[in-house]
């Protein structure tokens, strides 16, 4: 199902992956930073400078869109294309993870 249009973005960087995950619901910048930190159990921190640049790029690529502007806070959410991209990334990660697990299990059996 992955067309070329989507494949060119893959694999996503860790930061982009978590930003897209956070934007399954509309959020403004700081909301995304907090949600990414919570989702990743504190592993992934996105600086505000980096996040703003990411927003700009993702909007340009049509992966997210601005849905609300309150005072100076802009809220963004995934577009249909963004949702497809996220689903395809997760599908690939699952395959990679499954294959990796299988090999590691074989390896530990062979060592015994």
């Amino acid at each position, binding site marked *: 199902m992955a067309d070329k249009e989507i494949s060119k973005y893959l694999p996503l960087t860790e930061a982009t992956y978590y930003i897209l995950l956070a934007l399954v619901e509309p959020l403004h910048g700081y909301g995304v930073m907090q949600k990414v930190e919570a989702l990743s159990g504190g592993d992934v921190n996105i*600086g505000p400078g*980096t996040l703003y640049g990411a927003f700009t790029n993702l909007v340009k690529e049509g992966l997210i869109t601005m849905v609300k502007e309150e005072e100076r806070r802009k809220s963004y959410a995934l577009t249909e294309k963004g949702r497809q991209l996220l689903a395809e990334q997760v599908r690939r990660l699952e395959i990679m993870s499954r294959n990796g697990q299988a090999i590691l299990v074989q390896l530990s059996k062979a060592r015994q």
Partner: protein
Amino acid sequence: MNEKIIRKRKLFFSWQDGKEEVWLGEMSRQGLHLIEPGQFGRFLFAEGPAKEYSYRLDYNRNKLPEDYLQIIRDAGWEYLGKSSGWHYWRKEINSGKVPELFTDRESKVQKYQRLLVGYITSVPAFLYIIGLAMFKKFPGRHPLWFVVLFICLFMTWILFAAMNAIMIQLRINEIRKNKG
């Protein structure tokens, strides 16, 4: 509140922003907190209790968009001002976690690319602004020494800009190699 204001002078080259950030952090640890960055390495500090601050510098010649400023402020950063295209921010360090404005390689590289463009465009800008000022102030026929002086100033600026551009490019290469 009667806080003591202290002035300090310290020059940093454009590619030494990291060094400048560390220095400002050290000053705060000694109880000297930056109020405002000034031109040509003039810094204004307020004396107060020692604090752990993370100072971060961003480069942007243009006026920063309001929504950009809002995201950084929401994240708990305090804006201290702008000096020759550099924007000064700080945030308190809590539980040992040092806050950063830029957390990936690409955005760090982009900051230095903006700086690089700044130096490259400063060469025609110099010609335009200084040239116009000099030749307008002294209209009419220009003696040879005047033209030579202008060329010398211009050449000096080209050399200075080139040195900055090279050092900034080296910094970019280093970031790309170190993966952040």
